[in-house]
């Protein structure tokens, strides 16, 4: 397949979902339920095409960094604004991930949303969402990236707020959009620095210019700032602290949306962006990224432990896992960061869709019982679901195992790599806090995921609703099965404990940084740069490494594996002790560490803090500004008019009212006797005359 054809197919892949959107959105009434079939089949075609493209990229052009196409969007006369699209290995992989999950979500939704009155519209939104996300995937430049970045924002706004009759849903969609905008502002500022410096948006051109020594404002600090600002976009989209607040709220959207947005697409975009621009990060920027990720992973994990809403637990686990990915990129474990993105996509999609399956079943059960008050998502209403919903249970369990990092799953492979990366980073740079947070988070992940599984699927039915649930039909179960299977190790590496020998690690080799050595960690500099005399990578034993970090990562592999196994096992064990065997009462434990429990339960009070500070502050500011506008600026305008009017009245009265007083005064001044002064208080004409004369006198007085 030629480059050209490959790119043409990519364009088709990109626009097919948009076509789906257009077809459905203009024919909502006419299509009805057919909308689901149309949407799903279009995505099916898309998936096949994506597979073709990915196959070609990986098999036919494995060594070409990127196959891309640039074109002028419009011309400014002396320069042009260019757009383009490109397929590199990252993009090829992401094409598969996005189209497959989107396809499965479509399929899932045909059943899940079948009773919704806006069924066709839902599929149209799914279409535009997939389109936007594919746009990000295929972007080979910052501008394209930003354009589709914003479109993802729009489509997520539409999807999260799909049930807009609920205030919570419309609030959540608004919150998601605006929070993302904050990150986008940083992203755009980064783009502005990039465009200012390099006069291009193209990734490859930016990289080559930095490599040749072009720096923004000729300063490494600004380069760091540029990296961090670009990363700010990822902070927003990938729900990193401090902009993670939108993601849990976004669970107000229909569950398939949660699966699509939070597993594979929107939130992955941030990580994808970070991976794409990975070469421009300086040492400081990398440290920043690493800490952001580590802290996010840790914080979200602590919150996940105490939540009772089925989807919310998953949401926080998503935030936490995203933290892992970002952290991984931050510490330089590029391969494993992206690897985790892919593996996480499958098992998290599986978890979400399974939760959807559960909620769907709960909903039906409630419907049968005419119960309209219970919360179908509260895990305290579930329990024992493995009896009524065995398939859902099995897939869910497998995905839980994967996310907890148990061997023989994809999750183990990727997480293990990340943890090894953090250890290596800690070792080389001295930032030990990062591996510490990473390992604790990994343990907590295992704990709360098993807590979720045990509380909802194991034991007895906690409510009547739970007992009345039953397994859903194929459209719902099939996607779960597919996704669960994809979470096996075998798809990525035949060695179940070491991913580095698998095809995935080979296809996604670590990339070289382009940052000048003075602004980069020594251990991140490629060996051939560090030792200029040696021409290629240095060989150490059977492996060849790009740089010192990769070497160290390899050395830390087994340490990390054992540590992580131990800590995950501990988490799982604890979970069983608490919730399955009930040896320890979790409530008692919670009470004994009440402040910590409350901190976790209330999500670290971050929403409240934002409400009080940023939102409250902004509202206060707006009030102040409007007050200024009304009373000061406009007031000044009206005030001037008012003064004019007062002056006018005064002068107007001059002719009659005030005049008398003035006459008195001038009479006194002239020095006439009192009786004459009284006689002076005469009629109008004479007053006029007097004033005229006074006027002349004043004029003379002024002149001489």
């Amino acid at each position, binding site marked *: 397949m030629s480059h050209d054809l490959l790119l043409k197919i990519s364009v088709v892949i990109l626009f097919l979902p948009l076509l789906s959107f257009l077809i459905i959105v203009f024919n909502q009434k006419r299509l009805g339920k057919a909308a689901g079939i149309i949407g799903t089949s279009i995505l099916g075609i898309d998936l096949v095409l994506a597979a073709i493209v990915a196959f070609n990229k990986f098999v036919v052009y494995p060594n070409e960094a990127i196959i891309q196409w640039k074109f002028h969007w419009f011309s400014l006369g002396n320069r042009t604004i260019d757009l383009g699209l490109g397929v590199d290995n990252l993009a090829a992989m992401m094409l598969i991930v996005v189209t497959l999950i989107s396809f499965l979500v479509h399929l899932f939704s045909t059943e899940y949303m079948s009773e919704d009155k806006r069924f066709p519209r839902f599929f149209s939104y799914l279409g535009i969402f997939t389109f936007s996300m594919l746009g990000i995937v295929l972007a080979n430049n910052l501008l394209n990236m930003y354009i589709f970045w914003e479109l993802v924002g729009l489509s997520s706004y539409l999807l999260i707020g799909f049930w807009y009759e609920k205030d919570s849903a419309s609030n959540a969609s608004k919150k998601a959009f605006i929070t993302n905008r904050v990150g986008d502002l940083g992203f755009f500022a980064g783009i502005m620095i990039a465009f200012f410096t390099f006069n291009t948006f193209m990734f490859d051109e930016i990289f080559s210019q930095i490599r040749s020594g072009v720096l923004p404002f000729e300063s490494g600090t600004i380069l760091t700032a540029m990296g961090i600002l670009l990363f700010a976009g990822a902070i927003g989209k990938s729900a990193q602290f401090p902009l993670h607040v939108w993601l849990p709220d976004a669970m107000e959207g229909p569950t398939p949306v949660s699966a699509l947005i939070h597993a594979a697409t929107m939130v992955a975009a941030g990580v994808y962006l970070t991976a794409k621009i990975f070469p421009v990060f300086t040492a400081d920027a990398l440290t920043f990224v690493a800490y952001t990720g580590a802290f996010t992973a840790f914080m979200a994990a602590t919150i996940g432990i105490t939540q009772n809403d089925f989807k919310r637990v998953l949401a926080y686990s998503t935030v936490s896992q995203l933290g892992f990915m970002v952290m991984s990129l931050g510490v330089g474990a590029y391969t494993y960061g992206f690897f985790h993105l892919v593996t996480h996509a499958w098992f998290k999609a599986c978890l979400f869709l399974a939760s959807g399956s559960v909620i769907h079943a709960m909903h039906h059960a409630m419907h049968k019982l005419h119960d309209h008050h219970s919360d179908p998502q509260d895990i305290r209403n579930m329990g024992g679901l493995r009896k009524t919903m065995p398939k859902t249970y099995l897939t869910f369990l497998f995905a839980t195992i994967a996310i907890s990092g148990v061997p023989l799953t994809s999750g183990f492979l990727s997480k293990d790599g990340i943890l090894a990366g953090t250890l290596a980073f800690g070792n080389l740079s001295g930032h030990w806090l990062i591996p510490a947070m990473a390992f604790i988070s990994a343990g907590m992940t295992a704990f709360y995921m098993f807590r979720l599984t045990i509380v909802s699927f194991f034991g007895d039915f906690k409510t009547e609703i739970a007992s009345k649930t039953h397994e859903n039909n194929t459209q719902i179960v099939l996607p779960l099965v597919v996704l669960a299977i994809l979470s096996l190790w075998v798809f990525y590496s035949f060695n179940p404990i070491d991913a580095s020998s698998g095809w995935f690690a080979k296809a996604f080799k670590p990339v070289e940084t382009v940052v000048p050595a003075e602004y980069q960690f020594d251990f991140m500099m490629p060996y051939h740069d560090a030792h200029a005399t040696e021409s290629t990578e240095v060989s150490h034993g059977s492996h060849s490494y790009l740089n010192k970090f990769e070497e160290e990562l390899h050395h830390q592999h087994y340490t990390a594996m054992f540590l992580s196994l131990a800590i995950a096992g501990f988490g799982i064990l604890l979970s069983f002790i608490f919730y399955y065997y009930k040896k320890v009462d979790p409530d008692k434990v919670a009470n004994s560490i009440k402040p910590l429990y409350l901190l976790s339960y209330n999500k670290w009070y971050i929403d409240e803090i934002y409400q009080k500070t940023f939102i409250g502050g902004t509202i206060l500011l707006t009030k102040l500004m409007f007050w200024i506008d009304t009373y000061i600026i406009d007031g000044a305008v009206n005030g001037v008019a008012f003064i004019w009017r007062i002056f006018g009245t005064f002068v107007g009265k001059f002719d*009659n009212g005030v005049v008398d007083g003035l006459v008195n005064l001038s009479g006194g001044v002239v020095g006439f006797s009192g009786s004459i002064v009284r006689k002076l208080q*005469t*009629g*109008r*004409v004479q007053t006029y*005359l007097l004033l005229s004369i006074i006027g002349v006198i004043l004029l003379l007085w002024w002149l001489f």
Partner: protein
Amino acid sequence: MTNELTLYLIIGAILFSLGVFGIITRKNAIMVLMSMELILNSANINFIAFAKYGGMNLEGHIAAMFVIILAAAEVAVALAIVLNIYHNFRHVNIDEISKMKE
């Protein structure tokens, strides 16, 4: 000679001032008109005095003649108007003739 001229001029000035004062202070319209005559005559005194002491210039006399004539005409007009005022207001107190203001 200059002293005499000054004297006349001072008389003229006094007359002028009295006239202005009268116009401004008198309540009765007739008195106002009379004060007006004072002003015109003060000008006349100046004209004549200047004509006599300032080089026998005929123009001064002529000017005085014109002023006298015009003064007569003006008083005639003014009296007619005052008469009309009396007709309308039944008094000639210009203090109280102030319907229009501001």
